[in-house]
Structure formats: structure tokens, C-alpha cells
């Protein structure tokens, strides 16, 4: 019972209520401290010099003038970050991305850095560093990068996943194939086949807080790092490894984090700040500008996708294939593979094949963006599904219900599903009043499904009971969106005490064991599981203390509603002992009362969502307005429904921006043309309607409370749902994301010209 991961359907008293978050007051009064809000005595200001070229050989860096400038305390280049990676190419890639090593691989690639007494001096010093570049041919488009003769981004890369192994360098770092059955035979059985190609442009997570840190390294090899991150334990391990420090001697504290969405799962400036601090022997604060965030952190991929799906006249899919080309930026990654894994995961398919290409270009290293890779694959697949339903003359929801994956379905990426929520989200969509609401002129409705994996991973929790019976819950997963409230709810539930009696904090790396990143929708799932176990661990101690107080056997003590109760008629004279009484007596019953748990919270399962969207498109300008939006998603169990809704709404809003506006625009010179919020326009308050949510609760069998991760899946359906809505509104199939006004107008005009030519 105590450490059983399985769902037990217990009744809840406080879990599921909408309590105020513990960090709320700090965040509405301006007291919460984020990455750039820390100060250290004697701190310097760091700044980074970045390549203006998309691809160049760095012949020489002359920093002598910068070093001589009054107020400059350190200048670092790759020479100050020697390769200690011991043949681990993935680690060397991280190091090279943080600081160029003889070659610049994208516009914005860090080349050198300075630390000076103030920002003004640091800026002046950067201008004094002379870099001798030999500009090389570059490539920034995913399809161009795959063509023969394209400039090679990484000469050491040989395409993996090809037999026999190639001997020549290629921009395709790996090819990943998934699927089962015989797709050719399947297509032969189909009455209708739809085949189409799609493109999506590169977008950025767009967190409002730029990357920021305060690093302090001492000559004795110890150091501290205050940083905005999704995972300070991982940052500690990576930074220690890259700088040759000992893990235990580098203390990393995660500040409040001003948004991450995957973008703060990688180190970018932190090893540089540590190297500057080490060289200057002073604390160094390094904060990115917004321009740097766009040019030199990890956006998501741009993609080019071909989808082919066949079905019988009565609406059964007989075969499906997808070829997915994802640009990973300048370093090999797995994003194309993930696109191939997720593309058809919503459906029960007899014959399916998806092939993912991971492609290198001269753009910044790609990072995860919520459910990485899945939205672009879903855009292609869900758009094709909609066209197929239309050709067959079947309602798009009915068509999806007919082909939806269910328990026992062999997933397109291999394994067989347990209990899953795609069917219920589709049923809920079918029955939702939104599906029946009337539409006006120039309006269209679309819907789409989405899939994403959930992660568990290494997790560690401490629960300490104070002398007054209040509880400090110490977790190591960074709170990106209110998870401290959820963790405190879980501890209160287990201990049987009011929520207000629990205080949840995120520990630094010297105060708690290792915790993996807050990524893969794992925060509430895994720290929630560890909290359940830590609380049960503490209850064991509380029962023992009560037994000792009463001098009875511990097996006769039960924990009920925050109290120890002696069981059996022979103990009916003993009145119960509250957590407060036990805590007050603890010095004389054995000392501090605490519970701990260290767990690998594997078995997080998978997650599904269905979105419905109404748009109105102005046929004169091509401008699209989302007028109604509904998110339906399975949360397993919503610990704090407000923050579950918040994840649904936030993912939908990011998807709306991606679908309609946001894109990286590269010039022919390989430079990013719009590295700012003015020209890279994310949705503002007046762009959006209220975003309706419906939380389904289909318990996850592998979590004591049935929790599923909810953070990422909400970004998967929007591109397709909105594309289907826009296509229905304008009567033309939209195949290129974002559907900005010029693209929509062009599509409408081309369609008109075609129709006129046909007439």
C-alpha cells in the first residue's frame, strides 16, 4: 500500500479543490525572484559576442584590445572551455553550441564573452573583439538541406538508420522508420486515397523571461549558480561535466522560472557564465536580450511533411504513410524521429508506416517546445484525415471515432496501448454544444486530435513536520505553472490535515537528491507520486510515535484524518493524538518526524486531446480571428483543476499563435530577420476568445491518484484544428503554417483563378 504505484480509487477531501497557490502573494507583489533578480557582492556583468554569419570558419579571435579596456575583468573564448567530454559527441555538441569552436554554425552562435564592471563597459568590450571569419555557404531550409550538393553543416555526420551505413557526410543525421502491416496492400484495399504535402515554419517557445543566471566560481573549485531553468539538477550535472567541476561542489539554485515550455531544458549561457566567473574570480551575472533569445536559444523545428491515407467507403482506414522532414538546427537531434513516432498514434491502423528525417541546417539548435514534434505531424495527419472524411462524405468526428485507437490497439510506434483516452475525448467532442453551434458568414469550424507521451523519471521528495505540526514539503522539480499548490494538496490529503498547514518549496541541488527536469509533463505526475510515498512514510513514523507514547504495539495504531487512533476495545480509553500533539512531543519520542521518498516514476503513460475551433476569415485581408475554442483532454485526475485548465488554455493559445502568426523569417544571407516580439508576433489578449476547457478523468493505472501529465498535449491539436477551420471557412485547403494573411489571400486567389480557368 505505502509504496504501491497503482491507482487505488481513494476518496479525496482536498485534492481537486481550487486553493490559492503558495507562491501567489510573492508573485503579485513583485517579490518573487526570477533569473535576473539576483545580486551578489562584487558581481560583474557578462555579455556574449555572437556570429553575424550563418556559417563561417573562425580563423582568429583577437581579444587583446577588449582585455585592455578599463573595467574588463575577463574575456573567454572556446580556449577557456577545453573539451573534457572524453569522446562523448552529445556533450561536445552542447559545449560547442554554448561557445563556437573554430566555426560558427548559425547566425547568433556565441563566439566570445566578456565580464566587466558594468553593462556599458561589457558592450564596449564586445565591440573591441576582432573576429576573422571566412564565410562559408549556408543552408537554412529543411528541403534544400537534403538536396545533393547542399552545404554540409556537420562534416562528421553520417546518416544513421540506413543499411549499409553511408561513408559520406550528410545533413540527414538519422532516418527513423516506424509502423507495421503492409501499406501497399492496405492502399490497394482503399476506395479513397488522399495524399498531400504540408509545411510548417519554425516557432519559438516565446517565454517572457529571457535566459538569465548569476554564476560564482571560487579558486578552490567550488561554485554556485542561480539560474532560470526547468531542471537545476540536470544543469548542475551538465555544467560540472563541461567545466571539469565536481558535482557536489557546484550548488545550483533554480530561481522562479518565467516560462520555459521546453526551451529551458538545455544549457545555453550557463557554462559561459561559470567560465567567466572562474577566470575573473568574481560573481558574473549574464542575462540574454530578447534578440539573443530568438537567435541563439532553441526554437522548435520547421518541417516538411507528406501524408497519404486511404480508407474504404464506409470509413475504415486501410493504410497510412507519412514522410516527415524536421530541421534540427545545427546539431543532430531526435525531432524527426519523434514526429514519426507520434504522427499516427491516435489511430487504430492495420497498415501504417512513418519515416522521420532529422535534418541539419544553419539555424540554432532546436529544443523541445511543449510536446516536441507532435504538433507538426498532427497538422499533416489531421488535415489529411479531414479531407478523407469529406471525400467519403462522413462527419469528421464520426470518422475519427470509427478509427480511434483504444485499449489493445497496437500503436503506430510499436507497443500495444493500455486504457487510453482518445475515444472519450472524441465522444465528448461529439456531444459538446460547441459542435452544434451555428456558424456565420466567412466562418468555419475545425477539430483535430493530438497525442503525446508522458514521462516519469528520477524524483526525490522530503517531507518534514515542524514542532507545531505544520509541514514543509521539499520537492526538486521546478514549478513551471503552479505545481507547488498541487504537491501541497497531495501531502495534505495523505496526512489528513488542511492544505494551509503544508508549505511546499523547491530545493536547490545541495538540499535534496537528484531530480530530472520538469519536462515531458512529468512534474505533477512524478513529484506527486513521490509526495504520496513520502507522506505515507511520515505517517509510519507518526504511528510509531503514538504507539511509543501509549506503549502499545504499532499494529494497533491507525492514522485517521490527521490523528493517530488506538484500535481495539482494550485501547478505548486512549484518546487520539493529533499531528500537532505528536509533533510537539517529538523531541522525546525519537526526534524530528520526517518522510522521504526517492523513486523512478516510470509508467507515466500517454495522453490524448481533442480540440474544436471556430474561426472567421476576412476574405479581403486574409486575417483570421479565432472566435471560439474548446479543449477536451484527459488529465487522469486533476489535482488542482485551475492549473490543469491553465495548461490546456496556454497550450491552445501557443498553438493559435503558431497556426496563424508566428514564424522565423530568414533572409538569403542566413540571418534571422525578426528576432523581436514586434516582428515575431505572439497572440495578445485582444486576439483571443475565452478558451473553454473540459477535463476528462480517466485514471492512469500507474499512479496512486490516477494522475496523467497534462502540460504538453494541449499544443498538439491546434495547428490542425485551426487549419481545418480556416480551410472550411475559405473553401481552400491550407497546407502551410502559419496561415498568415498573405498566405491565406494567396490561397484564395489561386483557388479563384483555378475555378475560373475550369469554368
Amino acid at each position, binding site marked *: 500500500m505505502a509504496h504501491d504505484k497503482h491507482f487505488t480509487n481513494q476518496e479525496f477531501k482536498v485534492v481537486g479543490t*481550487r486553493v*490559492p*497557490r503558495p*507562491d*501567489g*502573494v510573492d*508573485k*503579485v*507583489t*513583485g*517579490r*518573487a*525572484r*526570477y533569473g*535576473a*533578480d539576483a545580486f551578489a557582492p562584487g558581481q560583474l556583468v557578462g555579455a556574449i559576442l555572437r556570429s553575424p554569419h550563418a556559417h563561417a570558419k573562425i580563423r582568429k579571435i583577437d581579444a587583446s584590445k577588449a582585455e585592455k579596456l578599463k573595467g574588463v575583468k575577463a574575456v573567454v573564448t572556446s580556449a577557456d572551455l577545453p573539451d573534457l567530454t572524453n569522446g562523448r559527441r552529445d556533450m561536445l555538441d552542447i559545449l560547442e553550441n554554448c561557445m563556437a569552436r573554430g566555426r560558427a554554425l548559425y547566425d547568433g552562435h556565441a563566439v566570445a564573452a566578456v565580464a566587466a564592471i558594468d553593462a*556599458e563597459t561589457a558592450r564596449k568590450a564586445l565591440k573591441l573583439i576582432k573576429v576573422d571569419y571566412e564565410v562559408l555557404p549556408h543552408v537554412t531550409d529543411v528541403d534544400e538541406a537534403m538536396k545533393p550538393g547542399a552545404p554540409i553543416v556537420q562534416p562528421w555526420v553520417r546518416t544513421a538508420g540506413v543499411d549499409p551505413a553511408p561513408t559520406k557526410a550528410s545533413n540527414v543525421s538519422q532516418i527513423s522508420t516506424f509502423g507495421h502491416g503492409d501499406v501497399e496492400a492496405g492502399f490497394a484495399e482503399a476506395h479513397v486515397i488522399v495524399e498531400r504535402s504540408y509545411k510548417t515554419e519554425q516557432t519559438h*517557445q*516565446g*517565454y*517572457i*523571461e*529571457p535566459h538569465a543566471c548569476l554564476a560564482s566560481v571560487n579558486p578552490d573549485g567550488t561554485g554556485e549558480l542561480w539560474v532560470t531553468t526547468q531542471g537545476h539538477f540536470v544543469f548542475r550535472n551538465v555544467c560540472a561535466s563541461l567545466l571539469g567541476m565536481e558535482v557536489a561542489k557546484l550548488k545550483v539554485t533554480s530561481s*522562479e*522560472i*518565467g*516560462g*520555459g*515550455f521546453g526551451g529551458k531544458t538545455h544549457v545555453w549561457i550557463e557554462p559561459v557564465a561559470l567560465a567567466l566567473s572562474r577566470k575573473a574570480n568574481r560573481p558574473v551575472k549574464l*542575462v540574454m*536580450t*530578447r534578440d539573443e533569445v530568438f537567435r541563439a536559444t532553441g526554437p522548435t523545428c520547421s518541417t516538411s511533411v507528406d501524408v497519404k491515407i486511404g480508407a474504404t467507403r464506409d470509413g475504415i482506414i486501410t493504410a497510412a504513410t507519412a514522410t516527415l522532414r524536421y530541421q534540427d538546427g545545427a546539431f543532430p537531434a531526435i525531432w524527426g524521429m519523434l514526429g514519426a513516432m507520434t504522427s499516427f498514434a491516435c489511430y487504430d491502423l492495420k497498415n501504417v508506416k512513418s519515416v522521420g528525417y532529422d535534418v541539419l541546417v544553419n539555424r540554432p539548435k532546436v529544443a523541445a517546445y511543449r510536446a516536441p514534434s507532435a504538433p507538426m505531424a498532427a497538422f499533416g495527419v489531421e488535415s489529411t484525415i479531414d479531407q478523407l472524411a469529406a471525400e467519403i462524405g462522413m462527419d469528421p468526428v464520426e470518422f475519427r471515432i470509427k478509427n480511434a485507437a483504444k485499449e489493445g490497439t497496437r500503436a503506430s510506434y510499436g507497443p500495444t496501448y493500455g486504457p487510453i483516452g482518445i475515444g472519450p475525448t472524441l465522444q465528448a467532442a461529439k456531444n459538446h454544444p460547441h459542435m452544434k453551434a451555428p456558424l456565420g458568414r466567412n466562418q468555419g469550424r475545425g477539430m483535430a486530435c493530438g497525442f503525446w507521451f508522458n514521462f516519469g523519471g528520477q524524483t526525490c521528495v522530503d517531507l518534514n513536520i515542524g514542532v507545531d505540526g505544520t509541514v514543509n514539503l521539499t520537492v526538486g522539480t521546478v514549478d*513551471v*505553472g*503552479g505545481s507547488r499548490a498541487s504537491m501541497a494538496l497531495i501531502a495534505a490529503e495523505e496526512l489528513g490535515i488542511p492544505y494551509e498547514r503544508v508549505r511546499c518549496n523547491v530545493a536547490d541541488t545541495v538540499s535534496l537528491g537528484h531530480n530530472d527536469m520538469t519536462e515531458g509533463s512529468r512534474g505533477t505526475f512524478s513529484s506527486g507520486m513521490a509526495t504520496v510515498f513520502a507522506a505515507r512514510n511520515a505517517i509510519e513514523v507518526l504511528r510509531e510515535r503514538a504507539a511509543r507514547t501509549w506503549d502499545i504495539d504499532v499494529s494497533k495504531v491507525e492514522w485517521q484524518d490527521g490523528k493517530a487512533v488506538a484500535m481495539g476495545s482494550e485501547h478505548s480509553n486512549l484518546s487520539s493524538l493529533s499531528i500537532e500533539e505528536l509533533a510537539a512531543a517529538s523531541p522525546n519520542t525519537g526526534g524530528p518526524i520526517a518522510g522521504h521518498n526517492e523513486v523512478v516514476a516510470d509508467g507515466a503513460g500517454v495522453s490524448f486531446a481533442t480540440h474544436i475551433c471556430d474561426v472567421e476569415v476576412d476574405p479581403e485581408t486574409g486575417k483570421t480571428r479565432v472566435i471560439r475554442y474548446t479543449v477536451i483532454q484527459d488529465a487522469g485526475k486533476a489535482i488542482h483543476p*485551475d*492549473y490543469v*485548465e*491553465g495548461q490546456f*488554455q*496556454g497550450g*491552445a*493559445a*501557443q498553438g493559435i499563435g503558431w497556426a496563424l502568426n508566428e514564424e522565423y523569417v530568414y533572409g538569403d544571407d542566413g540571418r534571422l530577420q525578426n528576432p*523581436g*516580439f*514586434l516582428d515575431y508576433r*505572439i*497572440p*495578445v*489578449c*485582444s*486576439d*483571443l476568445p*475565452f*478558451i473553454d476547457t473540459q477535463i476528462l478523468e480517466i485514471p492512469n493505472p500507474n499512479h496512486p491518484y490516477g494522475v496523467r501529465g497534462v502540460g504538453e498535449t494541449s499544443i498538439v491539436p491546434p495547428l490542425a484544428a485551426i487549419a481545418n477551420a480556416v480551410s472550411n471557412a475559405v473553401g481552400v485547403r491550407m497546407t502551410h503554417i502559419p496561415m498568415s494573411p498573405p498566405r491565406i489571400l494567396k490561397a484564395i486567389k489561386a483557388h479563384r483563378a483555378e475555378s475560373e480557368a475550369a469554368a
Partner: protein
Amino acid sequence: MSGILVATTVNGDAVEFVCQPRETLLEVLRNRLGLTGAKEGCGTGDCGACSVTVDGALVCSCLVLGAEVEGRAVDTVEGLAEGDQLHPLQSQFIKHAALQCGICTPGFLVAAKALLDRNPDPSEEEIRYALAGNLCRCTGYDKIVRAVDAAAKDLRKQGRKA
């Protein structure tokens, strides 16, 4: 580099500081006065995370020079609560879960107060347009709009100005 001596009022208190001619009000607030509630999200006036008011007018403090606030009254998120009482906007932001990461929250609160100061009974559309200069990437704005609407109702009930 000679500094400029500036005498101003911040959250009702008389304050003096020395700044460089090109230093922004945001840099002064954060680096010289220790008021880190206003955040730098872009430095170009596009995100609103650094919103403060100067003589009651809503501004992006990254676009105002420190030297410009001589003799003016600057109000920031740190001055929003009255004594130990949170402002109704602050209370409703917590109650409605109108923040996730919270980095944009100070700017939204200052902008929302500026709205309610001039329009105590805004429609949903008026709230949305008044807050269109403040970017939030976490919430989709849904719960922010509801929180501002609820705070406006609270203030009207109490018969007080924002």
C-alpha cells in the same frame, strides 16, 4: 561618464538617485533602487513586463530614461498593496489562478490598475484591448481577463477607485 542626479517619488516615497544619461527607468528601478518587480522581457516596449505608471500614465519603463522622471511620481507593482491589504487585483489574480509562471504578472497588474483607474466598469473587450500591450505566454489570457473583471466588481462594490 558623469551621472545625473534625479529627485523623484516612487510609490509615494521621495527618492534620489544618480544615473547615466542613457540608463532606462527600468534599469534604475531594478539595479539602483532594488525594485525588481518590473521585469525586462524584451527591452523594446513590446511585452509590457516592465509596465509602471509615471504621473498616472502607463508606460514601458524600458522606453523611459531614468533622468526623465525628475519631479514625477513613479508607481510600480511594489506599491500596489495598501499596508498589509492586497489590492483587489492582486487578490483576484491569486483567486482566479491568473498566473502560471508569473513573470508577466507585475506588468499586467499595473496595466489593469491603469485601466480601472480610468474605466471602473470595463467590458470584456475593453479589458482585452487595454491589456493588449502585455504579453503572457502561459495562460492564454482567459483567467487574467476573468480576474480583472472580478477585481473591477470588487472595487465598485467597495465604492473605491482602483
